[in-house]
């Protein structure tokens, strides 16, 4: 085995190490007076900006009806096949609504394609990043968990209007 060559030949000062240690100490000292960036989760929580892509949710209008018309485009575009939609007929003007809307959060990769493709602005990425489940069945979110009142999603909807 050949002797490994050093990448750099150290000078005399560098060989002493002391100046380097002093530099390091100085940096540490500086950091002590910088503002804190670490959050004490879960006592402190991260409030994401409107561009944040948390779990996808369905927009529920003020009258309690979902915007979704069950067109199935989100389900088609989803690269992870996380979304299943079953349409049914409704007497409302929109003609069809999702009888079943399920997102498998174990499959979801938070890419936001569903939001991008939605013709009704009915599915949007929320700020919710806390996803916990202990079995596969709990990871499949139905309409009960997905529907979120439009008021709580204003931020994201405005963001979409501006940048989509």
């Amino acid at each position, binding site marked *: 085995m050949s002797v490994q060559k050093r990448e750099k030949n150290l000078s005399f000062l560098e060989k002493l190490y002391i100046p380097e240690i002093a530099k390091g100490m100085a940096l540490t000292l500086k950091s002590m007076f910088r503002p804190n960036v670490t959050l004490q989760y879960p006592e402190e929580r991260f409030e994401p900006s409107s561009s944040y892509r948390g779990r996808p949710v369905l927009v529920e209008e003020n009258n309690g009806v979902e915007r979704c018309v069950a067109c*199935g485009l989100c389900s088609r575009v989803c690269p992870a096949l996380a979304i299943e939609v079953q349409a049914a007929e409704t007497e409302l003007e929109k003609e069809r609504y999702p009888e079943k809307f399920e997102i498998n959060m*174990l499959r979801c990769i938070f890419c936001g394609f569903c939001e991008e493709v939605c013709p009704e602005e009915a599915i949007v990425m929320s700020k919710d990043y806390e996803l916990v489940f202990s079995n596969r069945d709990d990871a499949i979110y139905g309409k009960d968990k997905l529907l979120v009142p439009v008021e709580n999603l204003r931020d994201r909807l405005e963001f979409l209007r501006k940048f989509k």
Partner: protein
Amino acid sequence: MPTLTVDGKQVEFKQGQTVIEAARDAGIEIPHFCWHPSLSVSGNCRICLVEIERMPKLAISCSTYASDGMVVHTQSDKTVQARNAVMEFILINHPLDCPICDEAGECKLQDYAYKLGEGESRFEEMKVRKEKRVQLGPHIKFDGDRCIMCSRCIRFSDEIAKHNQLTFVQRGDKVTITTFPGESFDNPYTLNTTDICPVGALTNQDFRFKSRVWEMSSTDSICVGCSRGCNTEIWVRNNEVLRLTPRFNETVNSYWMCDSGRLNSFKDVKAENRISGTYLRKDGKLQKESWEAALKHAAKSLKNFKSSEMAFIGSPYATCEDNYALVKFAKSLGVSNIIYIDHLIPGDRDDILIREDKTPNSLGAELVGMKSAKNGSELASLYKGIKEGKIKALYVMEEDVASFSNEFENVLPKLELLIVNASNENKTTLLADVVFPSSSFAEKHGTLVNFQGRVQRIRPAVATEEMDRALDGMQMSRWDKFGTEFDRWMNGVKYDANPNWKIFVSLSAYLDGKIKYEMAEDVFKDLARSVDGFKGLDYDIIGKQGVLLKIKQSVTV
């Protein structure tokens, strides 16, 4: 033969063909909405405009006769420009509601808008609104907004279905379609209009909003509603049949099928009364048992009877393979007189598609060596035999004999042994000692012979418990390809059933073991060797369009 030039390609044509037909025969598709190969020419959509040299203006190719030496351009600047203009014009009043439209994915207007449209609209005014969700007939819902007035449905009901029930009303951009006053769009062929409608204006009430078309797989099959044997496609999602659509076969059904076949013939595949698993009668009650136990019991019981004490009943609902295996099985037990029961509804026929014989394979049943019980003497002697105790064991395959006649129902309890192969629970299975679950037409390979003597194939579209879509070479949708056992959209019901021929093979293994087949094709090969009309045929030769058997038309219904 006269020739014309389409886009620089020399195309031969028959005298009397139009430009669009000549081009189509040569594999050049000229866009069209209102033109349909089986309907008269209307020429109202104008999308098939082409440039023809030495003609002053562009001409619509659907109503311009081809003539020798004609030079046609379908891609010239002038044509493309005109086509864009027509697209823009048609799209003016067409709503942008593809997301909620059932036709999306198989919509001619959508396809052409992508292919030929500019992608921009200059129209800023309000679109004309018309009536939506109009119930035109029992099976059809009409959306006036989406209609592009191609008149295909009007011409279809007039020319093909022979019921002149639809018409245009109003003028200009207010034109809409309606039935004549007091009429309902209720002829036996109405649902074909949903297939030929180039947009989503006419929708199938039964299929409405059930699934997007790109989520389903489609499998070539045959309708089992009557002896016409219309070529169909079975559309399946999550192992459930959602709709049937007709498939083109010039000599059998052209582009059409009847409403009853389309709506009813697949409803038994996933039904409440489907039989899954084998059943044995114990202490007077039918109880679920393992296949092995049921086969053993059936074989042991059959051994107790002399061949003169047994009778077999085949079925014109079952495939040739199933009936052939039944005949072979019966013969291995020394029984050679096998009958099947006809199901005719006298008078329920027309000159279009519908036949009186409501079974798909009576000719095939006859060809493989079974006798029709039509003249009644066979049935009478069977009743008598059972009554007098001469016939003690009866094997019935896919036939509800108890519902067939009161006499039958009354004599069945006299039997010492009744074995039934059935896909759905019925009066006969309730009386049986052993019930074997048979696969439905949508779950197996097989052949059916229609009234013309044309042998056609059915293919599995729905998987049974022991089948695997990928390994068995079945058609697969995107869901089927990527699904796992943990996905709810993959957990559709699978029944524990087998094709009848397979049941006879398993049963034979417990008797003399002489019937040995691995797959349906083996049965057919054996059948083709031993039955005259089928000589030289195999599944590949039958293919998608079927083959006319070389037989005398012995069954005329």
